[in-house]
């Protein structure tokens, strides 16, 4: 296979990982919202945990995007 073609296919494959991050981030915010609507008075105290969960879930999507960018522009 042409190495350039393999590079682009690899970059495309790496981006699949971002789908998982999308599910994770949606899960974090969705669950927060459903919890917050049940007990709105406790919601404000959980903002730190919300953003922590968001950051941890998002990191893996960013990692796979980074792999794609490395394949496209650096390697």
């Amino acid at each position, binding site marked *: 296979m042409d190495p350039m073609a393999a590079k682009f296919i690899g970059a495309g494959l790496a981006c699949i990982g971002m789908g998982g991050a999308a599910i994770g981030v949606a899960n974090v915010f969705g669950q927060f919202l459903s919890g917050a609507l049940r007990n709105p008075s406790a919601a404000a*105290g959980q903002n*730190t945990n919300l*953003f*922590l969960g*968001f*950051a941890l879930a*998002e*990191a893996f999507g*960013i*990692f796979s*995007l*980074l792999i794609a*960018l490395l394949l496209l*522009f650096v390697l």
Partner: protein
Amino acid sequence: MAADPIHQFEIQNLVPLLKVGAAEIHFTNSAAFMIVAVGLTAALLIGATAGRRLVPTRMQSVAELTYELMASTLRNSAGEEGMKFFPLVLSLFMFILMSNVVGIIPYTFTVTSHIIITAALALTVFFTVIIYGIYRNGLHFFNLFLPSGIPGWMAPMIIVIELLSFLSRPISHSVRLFANMLAGHITLKLVGGFVVMMGSVGVLGTAGAIAPLALTVALTALELLVAVLQAYVFTILTCIYLNDAIHPGH
């Protein structure tokens, strides 16, 4: 024309400073924008609060709200004892926030889009946690790697897992900020490139260019959100890691 989306991250030498052997030290655009970020931080925090009015002006209110936000975040996650790290946490937050926000302005340089900068910041936090943790708790600091109430036969496995997760912290801490900034700016550049490409086709192309132009505006707003959010996330993680140094037991 497809503009190279990576070109914007190039480091340019502005003023040569000194030469040590084969290595040349230059005043770069990165250094210039770091000075801009520090200058803006100082202008906001010192300049706006110089009046010290009882009823704050708008800028004083911004400075006070930022201070209060960071103080409450640190107090909630690391306790009252964590407040001795408040200068570190506030400096990190303001530096990253200003670098990120200044970077959104076209033709500027985003300091935090280079991993060497974010890695330096993350390693500062990492070594602060280790050094202060051992200084304050002695060998009890290593309780961090063994949560209490774990059955003895599971301990070796848990210690390996906890150690790996502890050692990978500076990597995820720095890559998260840097990659968010990098990816956002590349996306902006690509979508902005579509406008130019469509505009060069003709009248129909110019009409069609409105769609990517609108997308660019929307993405810039999103990037502003990401810039503030990532600065906040970096600081929250710093607070949580500092909490481990102060209270190593789980």
